[in-house]
């Protein structure tokens, strides 16, 4: 029983990390169809933002909370620049986008190395997030709980924007039928830009959160990018709901496999499960039903 609850917590926390890194991607890849290999580097930028803010504000708790909106702005701004400078010229050329953004990701990694040095930087976790707390009799690491809350909040915020605001309606309209959206006067190019800003901004927030778990180094993003794509693909393109379920599903599977086998085998089994799943359901868990011909 103890093992079961411990692994359940582990699975949910792995899932919440996956969700946090994949949520931004589910917007840029899922909604816009842009394969952005530099997404991981926006996560890295968020982590470095937390580091820089902490250098300025020495109180770790305050700096963490302030870093979240700043991380969003930094990630979003980088995404916006990338969209305007490169990606906007490459819509409908997915292969070129993939190569270009891969190049950008390498440039950003080297930039981080030059700016901050190759060794990993240490972001100090606030005292109130170290150790663990008891939730209904189960010991949960506080840092994990914080990330869980952060990713759920991010999901709720994104869903609220998509469902309730005029911007969200325009984004959904653009995804479902770009031509029709254009004919009723939606500036789809500008909508793309907003979407990209929000998606990249969430990557920045993810980066801030991940400093609680791992190291802040130039290659931080590369260790998450593949997982993020897996979650979005398994969840189904264009659906936040799919991303959430896929993230927690894969997180729980990872924890289960890892407990009964080893970390390396678990990773392999997980990939196998995804491959098999996509054989049965190539479109992922959920798909957007559209009337567009494309």
């Amino acid at each position, binding site marked *: 029983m*103890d093992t079961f609850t411990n692994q359940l*917590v582990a699975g949910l926390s792995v899932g919440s990390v996956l969700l946090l890194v994949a949520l931004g991607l589910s917007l840029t890849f899922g909604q816009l169809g842009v394969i952005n290999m530099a997404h991981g580097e926006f996560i890295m930028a968020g982590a470095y933002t937390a580091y820089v803010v902490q250098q300025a504000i020495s109180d770790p708790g305050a700096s963490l909370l302030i870093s979240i909106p700043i991380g969003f702005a930094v990630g979003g701004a980088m995404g916006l620049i990338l969209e305007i400078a490169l990606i906007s010229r490459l819509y409908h050329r997915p292969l070129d986008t993939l190569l270009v953004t891969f190049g950008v990701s390498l440039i950003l990694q080297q930039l981080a190395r030059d700016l901050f040095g190759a060794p990993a930087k240490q972001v100090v976790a606030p005292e109130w997030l170290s*150790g*663990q707390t008891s939730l209904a009799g189960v010991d949960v690491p506080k840092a994990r709980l914080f990330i869980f809350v952060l990713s759920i909040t991010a999901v709720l915020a994104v869903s609220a924007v998509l469902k309730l605001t005029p911007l969200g309606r325009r984004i959904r309209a653009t995804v479902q039928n770009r031509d029709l959206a254009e004919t009723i006067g939606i500036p789809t190019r500008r909508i793309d830009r907003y979407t990209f800003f929000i998606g990249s901004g969430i990557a920045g927030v993810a980066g801030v959160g991940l400093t609680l778990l791992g190291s802040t180094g130039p290659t931080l993003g590369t260790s998450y990018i593949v997982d993020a794509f897996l979650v979005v693909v398994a969840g189904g393109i264009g659906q936040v709901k799919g991303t959430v379920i896929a993230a927690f599903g894969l997180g729980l599977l*990872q924890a289960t496999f890892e407990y009964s086998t080893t*970390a390396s085998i678990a990773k392999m089994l997980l990939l196998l499960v995804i491959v098999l799943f996509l054989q049965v359901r190539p479109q992922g868990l959920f798909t957007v039903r559209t009337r567009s011909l494309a």
Partner: protein
Amino acid sequence: MQTGAFATSALHNAVNGHSGRQHTLSMLKTRVLAGITMSLALAFSLAACGAKADDDDEGGGSSAKSCVDTSGATVKVGFLNSLSGTMSISEKTVADSLNLAVSEINAAGGVMGKKLEVVQEDGASEPKIFAEKATKLIQSDCVAAVFGGWTSSSRKAMLPVFESNDSLLFYPVQYEGLESSPNIFYTGATTNQQIIPALDYLKGEGVKSIFLVGSDYVFPRTANKIINAYAKANGIEVKGEEYAPLGATEFSTIVNKVKSADADAVFNTLNGDSNVAFFKQYKNVGLTAAAMPVVSVSIAEEEVAGVGIDNLKGQLTAWNYYQTVNNPANTKFVKAFKAKYGNDRPTSDPMEAAYTSVYLYKGMVEKAGSFDVAKVQAAAGGVTFDAPEGKVTVNGENHHIAKTFLMGEVGADGLITTVWSSPAPIEPDPFLKSYPWAAGIGG
């Protein structure tokens, strides 16, 4: 019939040219073979002429005779470290301390009156490039010896290059043992100078059970094989053995397993950034150095800041050198290093082993009275140096060095202090021949 068949096949050849090409190929092969034989013969005749051989074979390249020129006022040595790629973090520090040693030696008059001239090459964190650059250093730069390498895969890639060219490599990093080449000097620890004494220490502290955590590659797997054999022979229970993929950052399940196994100590052979994630998550589930200490074999002063002092305080490390070692040679080394590279730069075990390797080379050459590889090899056994880590002695048989083991504890200032040391320098035993319980591992 036969002629007929021949004619047909000739016609066939003429039509598609297939075996015709093969024919040219085999002719080419013969020519290349002849060329190699020629250049070998040339090399041997040159070798007969004298110690100094000029680099005059144009096409050969595979010549086994060295082209080292020791007739001038300087002698070239090669440094081969990764200055780019993932390993550059660590290997740049080794290049720095190698340079420090050479500039000290040159300032004090050089080796046998000759200044050392450094040719620096970048191994780019790629074993293949290490092998290529080693070949280049030996064959076109004509260096007398090469210093460098870090990962075992880089060393394994360079080994055949140094053996076939009969040149010397000084390798400064602790490694998994089970190797000994006449052309390599290993100035880092082998397993019986790092892992086994660390286990001796734990046993002495009353540890009855351990948990093994490592990255999934050759060093941790070999180290854990040795640890398992040791544990079996000494009545220590191994409660679990877990491997994470290289670069893994998700440790919640492994940490859960460690926690529920409730061992007396954890033996950690994780590499690189995984350490950061492991220690943060270890602390997050409420595990402490007091309750379940972690012994790490790849966290040195350089890495402490990255992992976070608050995550590592009180944890144990197993090395042969720390910046805090108290002796005149170390005081001088630390002072010189900080003066050259900055006050914030710590000194660590591999850096010290690299620094020491240059001085040991100097000692060997001066004992041999020559830069000649065979003479240096013959003179190497018994060469000593009062290194920053303490006195070290070269073992002439297996080319490792006798070193003192130091168990360290990470302090609140990020430096590591010695909590226990082996009573005397430990003789290197890379194949663990002197340990009966290790039968079958040494091969």
